[in-house]
């Protein structure tokens, strides 16, 4: 960062909001060296559009502070939900600032202290936030060098920063720590240009493996999640919920609830909540409310849903097109047409949506299990009519999100109830509420018409998506005549999805990769070509080819036409800037239809890998979680009624499902870092479907591949 890119505003006379936030911030944190940024300048906000519109704050926000004791505080609006930025972001900062890793303290997800952020999703933290944070650190390093140059009266070019000290290369006696330099100072710097992404080589901390820095507090029970925070006078709340989506409250009698000792019932329109400082009595009171509902539900269920989607009057949008489909048909020797189905899938984090809301005078503070603290802050401003500076959201540790906690309804509810009750309110959704109000992975249909010539080269690719989503719908393969069409909800027509849908880890890429890679396998098998050879023949993308070579070598892959009886399945794809190739091995019980995934080998090109251990753990997590949408997870529903509302009827992967895993991260130190929290999940469904086909000759067109569906497909094979 060049000096000309920054300004120094030590005593700004500007009395607007921004100045106030900055001054209160500096007051809050004491002296030292601060580097501020304007987030819309530095972060590529348009690339990660938040789910709701926001007027961007006209404010500078701090990225880092070097305190008088030499501690470096890093402030980020990102949150920690197990994906590991609490470890990887300090690694990046330690390198840029030349400071020991243990000197860095990270403060996350607090809207009063941290720079604005759209939300923690899309595998964006390392690739988007990382470079901005590095630029702030580089700026701070420049300030430190200048201060040391003044102190020693030597040119800055003669100085070096090392391990938290500035040293004079010509006079070893001239050595001063960052803390000494920051002492008694209050220096504020402002970054005004977008940082460039450069020189990712020669690092001390980046690229080395570090264990989760939050492990000790998590194994001892000391880690605080939202539900663990206690405030004086706090009460627990539950909300009266309808039996199904679309049901409307007609009559209600809360007298039974009010008779339960210590219970307060509050009401604001449709929101009826019971409160008690004793959590058991909350349940007892809620059960005593008598409520009746009217039902006006969609005539849709998990069986007729897919026909309804394909038959609906939809908005049609050509996502991409190249060549001429007619010409593609003409030059194809064989044409293949398939239809793939994917159901609604729940996020099911073990920590349910939880929030604690407290009013102090006219200032509202909400602690929340959320992937979007600033989104919740905006929501509170909008829905409670409060000024932005009167609303603070704090995000403690989050017990899993996977996209589901980008929705923050519970935070709004807790705040509304706290206002009505006049005391701090803890609202912890029950597991049933978590399943009922989840924003599910959207169900969808994918139709593919594709063709190959005599050599097995793909000449035609006509891809239609119904009501899922387009992420991961790229063709990947080198096809001269291709088109992708997306059919989605027509404005003002009957809703296709009977309840909320949203982003589920690598949103919709699981469905698209399942369909695409199954279709590729169908063509390879019919052409009598080994599925790896078939893919390599049709790929020009060098990163994907490199991933295939790495994964085939690791797996000890031997070529075979399918079905070979061996139970080997392949799939590849890209997500969040990362390339993935996967080979799995399954055993299928031919009597029960039960599938056991024995081994998963996965290779990924994610550019520079900041924390290889953390990235590996994310890959393993993706594979294990991916087994769920592949084999068992499906929301069963009738109209607006969700039938599976707990873990007895909604089955997520267990220990006995765990396959042997071999994960390879390609060495790409010279490339910018890309996403790692989602990519490896996208290929699991397709690879397993292809392995089932290889084992049995039965082709599955619908996820999850339950024993019943596998048996049915085997009968047809």
């Amino acid at each position, binding site marked *: 960062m060049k000096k000309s890119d920054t300004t120094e505003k030590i005593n700004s006379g500007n009395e607007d909001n921004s100045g106030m936030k900055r001054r209160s911030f500096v007051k809050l944190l004491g002296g030292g060296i601060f580097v501020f940024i304007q987030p819309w300048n530095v972060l590529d906000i348009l690339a990660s559009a938040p789910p709701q519109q926001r007027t961007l704050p006209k404010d500078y926000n701090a990225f880092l502070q070097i305190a008088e004791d030499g501690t470096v505080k890093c402030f980020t609006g990102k949150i920690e*939900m*197990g*994906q*590991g930025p609490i470890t990887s972001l300090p690694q990046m900062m330690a390198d840029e600032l030349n400071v020991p890793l243990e000197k860095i303290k990270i403060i996350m997800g607090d809207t009063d202290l941290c720079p604005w952020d759209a939300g923690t999703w899309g595998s964006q933290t390392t690739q988007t936030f990382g470079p901005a944070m590095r630029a702030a650190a580089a700026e701070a390093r420049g300030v430190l060098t200048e201060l040391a140059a003044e102190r020693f009266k030597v040119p800055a070019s003669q100085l070096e920063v090392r391990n938290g000290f500035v040293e004079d290369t010509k006079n070893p006696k001239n050595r001063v720590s960052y803390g000494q330099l920051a002492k008694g100072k209050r220096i504020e710097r402002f970054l005004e240009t977008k940082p460039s992404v450069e020189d990712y080589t020669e690092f001390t901390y980046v690229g080395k493996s570090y*264990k*989760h820095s*939050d*492990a*000790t507090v*998590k*194994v*001892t*029970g*000391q*880690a*605080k*999640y939202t*539900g*663990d925070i*206690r405030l004086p006078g706090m009460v*627990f709340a539950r909300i009266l919920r309808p039996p199904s989506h679309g049901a409307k409250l007609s009559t209600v009698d809360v007298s039974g609830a009010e008779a339960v000792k210590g219970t307060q019932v509050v009401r604001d329109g449709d929101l009826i909540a019971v409160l008690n400082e*004793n*959590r*058991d009595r909350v349940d007892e009171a809620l059960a005593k409310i008598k409520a009746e509902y009217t039902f006006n539900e969609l005539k849709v269920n998990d069986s007729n849903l897919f026909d309804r989607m394909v038959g609906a009057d939809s908005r049609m949008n050509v996502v991409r097109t190249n060549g001429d489909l007619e010409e593609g048909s003409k030059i194809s020797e064989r044409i293949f047409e398939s239809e793939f189905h994917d159901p609604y899938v729940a996020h*099911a*984090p*073990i*920590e*349910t949506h939880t929030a604690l809301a407290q009013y102090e005078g006219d200032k509202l503070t909400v602690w929340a299990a959320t992937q979007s603290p600033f989104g919740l802050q905006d929501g509170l401003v909008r829905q409670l009519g409060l000024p932005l500076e009167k609303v603070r959201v704090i995000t403690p*540790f*989050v*017990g*899993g999100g*996977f996209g589901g906690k980008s929705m923050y309804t519970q935070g709004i509810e807790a705040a509304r109830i706290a206002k009505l009750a006049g005391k701090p309110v803890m609202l*912890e959704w*029950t*597991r049933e509420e978590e399943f009922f109000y989840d924003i599910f992975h959207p169900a969808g249909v994918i139709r593919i018409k594709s063709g190959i010539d005599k050599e097995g080269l793909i000449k035609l690719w006509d891809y239609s998506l119904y009501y899922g989503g387009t992420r991961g719908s790229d063709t990947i393969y080198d096809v001269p005549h291709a088109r992708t069409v997306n059919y989605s909800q027509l404005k003002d027509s009957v809703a296709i999805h009977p309840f909320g849908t949203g982003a589920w880890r690598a949103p919709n890429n699981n469905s698209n990769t399942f369909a695409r890679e199954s279709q590729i396998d169908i063509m390879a098998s019919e052409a009598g070509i080994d599925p790896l050879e078939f893919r390599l023949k049709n790929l020009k993308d060098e990163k994907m080819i490199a991933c295939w070579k790495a994964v085939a070598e690791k797996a000890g892959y031997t070529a075979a036409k399918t079905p070979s009886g061996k139970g080997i399945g392949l799939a590849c794809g890209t997500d969040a800037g990362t390339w993935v190739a996967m080979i799995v091995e399954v055993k299928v019980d031919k009597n029960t239809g039960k599938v056991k995934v024995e081994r998963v080998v996965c290779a990924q090109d994610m550019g520079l890998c900041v924390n290889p*251990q953390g990235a590996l*753990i994310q890959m*393993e*997590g*993706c*594979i*294990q*979680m991916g087994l769920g949408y592949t084999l068992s997870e499906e929301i069963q529903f009738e109209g607006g009624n969700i039938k599976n509302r*707990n*873990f*007895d009827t909604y089955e*997520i*992967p*267990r*220990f*006995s*499902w*765990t396959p042997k*895993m071999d994960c390879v991260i390609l060495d790409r130190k010279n490339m910018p870092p890309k996403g790692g929290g989602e990519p490896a999940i996208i290929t699991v469904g397709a690879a397993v479907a292809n392995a089932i086909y290889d084992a049995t000759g039965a082709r599955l067109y619908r996820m999850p591949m339950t024993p019943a569906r596998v048996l049915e497909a085997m009968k047809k094979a």
Partner: protein
Amino acid sequence: MEEKIRFTLNGKKTEITTEPNQTLLWVLRNQLGLTGTKYGCGTGFCGACTVLINKEPSRSCTLPVSDVAGKDVVTIEGLARGGKLHPVQQAFVDHDALQCGYCTPGMILTAAGMLMKNPSPTRQQIIDGLEDNLCRCGAHTRIIDAVETAARQMKGGK
């Protein structure tokens, strides 16, 4: 009607006055301030609320507090002794056997209880013993490794 209920909690004699049908999970979290024991499903399916009762892993979200009268209860806060992590806790740290950490207390107590009964479990016995504890982040393979390591260390250390 409220009653006095006496039990041993993390090695200390404890007496509380409460209604006997109160849920152990909420008593631990809200009355006794031990928030390491987590709510996950409220029906005993997920294991996030697991505590040891007389060394037996038990689901505190479905138990009335009166059930532990006269018994020995250990929560995640009581597992480390004298500032030293229990071998299972240490193995979870060493193997990076967690992500979001929310299921971790229940996992660790289930594993610790299992190792008290069977100090030399096979890998398959570890899998069977943890089968009804749910982890959504997918740390399973590392959790199995961690429990294997802890079992080895506990035998070697005694």
